């Protein structure tokens, strides 16, 4: 039931996402060059921080949000086999979000919003930046509403039936995002916009940081869930096998959505405005949310093993060699899992409460999230794009060879970029610096790593250009006959029988989230209204 109109809607979202991506990739390479100080003509703190702010907003907010929306619309119509609910509303959300992006881009690119994508009050940007970011989020709420309406309509029309796994994950992500974005929405609507417009004189940065921490962890899972969805519903089929367990996949998505939310204080471990008991509570929750990732790793690798053995692989590791390494989806998942293992290890260090002091706000942290977001998550966005583009555009992919080269380059580039980044953090380099001017011998040890990072960034930029080139050539192919491919979803090796209603619905989990959020954020937010606090006035930068 996916009409041409829905395909156009999905494709439009994905093009906005990847247009933002390629612009941000060029900025990333500029930043690594500027920061190294090897080319003195580039030295400029104002340009650097305008670029870093824009790079963060484009990658973390624009690429992800538009990709997730476009992907979700297509998943909903294909898996539920019903037309999109309210197409005009979906377009309304698209244009609202796009208008928000343009509105925010003006102050960002003119250096009027160099506050980084994490805002950092009491430094204040031009109000248009906050208003634009808000409209982007409101546009994404339209998507959430459409996903949840389609989910419940289908359930009503098909009582007792199991919701297709891909749609279950998408609906869980919509619920997750509504909860997630509420924290930053409170910060922006009640603190940042009023302050930037001069309606209020002071704000409490402690409260602002607490509200932002509400959003800052689960937003990562909002970005990651499409990648995990591809792991479960596309990869086994593309590899030539079956999904090892459909039920465990649902459990993993539920635990991800529920426990991603009440754990944001691991971003505040080093902060003075929250007490240690709350930090420890959120720290323990952070370890709980590692469980669904461990389960996902097992299920995906087991599914790959089934495929490898069906293809004639023998022995303990023989099945790895028989996997279709020339399939973009399969290659992507292998590379994504490799990056997830190393990135996950780094994440355990970050999560480990007081141990966080060792790496907090050092270069280790951007190294970590570039590996796990830029690596694991984005390589799966590539894989999904390569899979969807021929279907959405009705034309065959321009070059599978080029796609494989691009994926390998992305992996190699990411390793070359992020390994030295982690080491720099352990050597004490702070993050978010535009140049190294500390008059200290320690900084001599940093130089070779910065050189390696420039090279890593260059490989990534080359890979990103190949990716966009391949998609554009596919889209612009004039001679191609119309393809009529449809998505193929993996079959579970055991058919799902006797699925409890609570693994087929989000109602119970929505209530569980509400309880957990009250427990973990109730008093920590309330305390700012109980104790005597002192506001900060707005500062420029």
């Amino acid at each position, binding site marked *: 039931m996916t009409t041409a109109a829905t395909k156009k809607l999905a494709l439009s979202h994905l093009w906005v996402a990847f247009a933002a991506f390629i612009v941000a990739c060029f900025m990333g390479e500029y930043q690594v060059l500027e920061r190294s100080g090897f080319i003195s003509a580039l030295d400029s703190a104002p340009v650097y921080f305008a670029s870093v702010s824009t790079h963060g907003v484009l990658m973390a907010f624009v690429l992800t949000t538009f990709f997730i929306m476009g992907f979700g619309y297509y998943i909903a119509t294909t898996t539920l086999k019903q037309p999109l609910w309210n197409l005009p509303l979906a377009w309304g959300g698209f244009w609202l979000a796009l208008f928000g992006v343009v509105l925010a881009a003006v102050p960002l690119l003119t250096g009027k919003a160099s506050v980084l994508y994490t805002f950092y009050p009491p430094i204040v940007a031009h109000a248009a930046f906050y208003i634009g970011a808000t409209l982007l989020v409101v546009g994404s709420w339209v998507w959430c509403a459409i996903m949840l309406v389609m989910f419940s309509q289908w359930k009503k029309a098909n009582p007792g039936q199991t919701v297709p796994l891909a749609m279950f994950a998408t609906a869980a992500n919509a619920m997750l995002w509504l909860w997630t974005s509420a924290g930053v929405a409170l910060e922006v609507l009640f603190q940042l916009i009023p302050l930037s417009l001069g309606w209020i004189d002071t704000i409490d940065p402690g409260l602002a940081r607490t509200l932002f921490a509400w959003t800052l962890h689960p937003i990562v899972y909002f970005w990651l869930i499409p990648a995990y969805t591809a792991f479960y519903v596309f990869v086994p089929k593309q590899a030539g096998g079956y999904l090892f367990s459909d039920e465990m996949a649902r459990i993993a998505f539920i635990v991800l959505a529920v426990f991603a939310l009440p754990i944001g204080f691991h971003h505040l471990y080093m902060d003075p405005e929250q007490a240690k008991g709350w930090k420890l509570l959120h720290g323990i929750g952070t370890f709980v949310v590692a469980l669904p990732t461990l*389960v996902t790793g097992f299920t995906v690798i087991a599914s790959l093993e089934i495929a490898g053995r069906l293809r004639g692989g023998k022995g303990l590791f023989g099945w790895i060699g028989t996997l279709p390494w020339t399939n973009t989806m399969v290659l992507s998942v292998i590379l994504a899992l490799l990056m997830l293992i190393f990135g996950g290890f780094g994440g355990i260090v970050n999560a480990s409460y007081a141990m966080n002091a060792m790496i907090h706000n050092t270069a280790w942290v951007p190294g970590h999230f570039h590996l796990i977001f830029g690596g694991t998550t984005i390589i799966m966005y590539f894989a999904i794009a390569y899979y969807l583009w021929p279907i959405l555009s009705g034309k065959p992919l321009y070059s599978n060879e080029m796609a494989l080269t691009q994926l390998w380059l992305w992996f190699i580039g990411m390793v070359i970029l992020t390994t030295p980044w982690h080491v720099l953090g352990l050597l004490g380099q702070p993050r978010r610096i535009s140049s190294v001017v500390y008059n200290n011998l320690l900084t001599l040890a940093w130089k070779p790593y910065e050189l390696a990072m420039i090279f890593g960034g260059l490989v990534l930029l080359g890979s990103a250009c190949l990716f966009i080139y391949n998609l554009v050539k596919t889209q612009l192919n004039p001679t191609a006959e119309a393809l009529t491919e449809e998505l193929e979803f993996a079959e579970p090796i055991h058919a799902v029988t006797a699925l409890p209603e609570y693994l087929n619905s989000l109602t119970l989990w929505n209530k569980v989230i509400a309880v957990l959020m009250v427990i973990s954020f109730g008093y920590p937010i309330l305390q700012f209204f109980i104790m005597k606090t002192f506001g900060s006035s707005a500062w420029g930068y």
Partner: protein
Amino acid sequence: MQIDTAKILAQLRTWCTEFNAIHIDPLEKKWIAISLAVVGLFVAIITLDALFHGINPPSKVETIDSASLHLSTEFAEDKLGVQTDAQGVITVRMVAGRYSFFPKHITVPAETPLTFRWVSMDVLHGVHIPMTNMSTMIVPGYVAEITTTFPKPGEYPLLCNEYCGLGHNHMWSNISVIAKEDWQASVKSPAQGEQK
């Protein structure tokens, strides 16, 4: 509102029965058990260290008016730096402001517990001393307190690690950690350490 315990228990029992009916491969069950054990071990180590060894991040929820530090009894200019009280307990009071940490150079002893009290006079900052556990955010409106011990003497930089404006990378100062014996020899007056 009356809570019907029996009904809730019955509901929970149904959920458990339903859960047990799900097909989960024995191998996957083993993997989940291993995962739970590993995660449980990490959580146990962190929790026991926090509760019994006092290993916690800086978390003293103490507010202060960042706009009037110069008038405060604790963070006025002449009160800053290293102070040793009558019991020999060392407190280091520091102000972070664009773009330095004040005082710009301090000297402290190695192998001695030091309590740092950090405040910001303007925006958000963060500070760490590379190769040590001295790391904290400095949020305007709050006092960040952290107690730590430097194991090795040496010259260390104090680096701002949170974006605080276009001059962020220029925000740093120095700390000299000297041998414990040298410190005890140098401290004549118990009220005042070295300030430059």
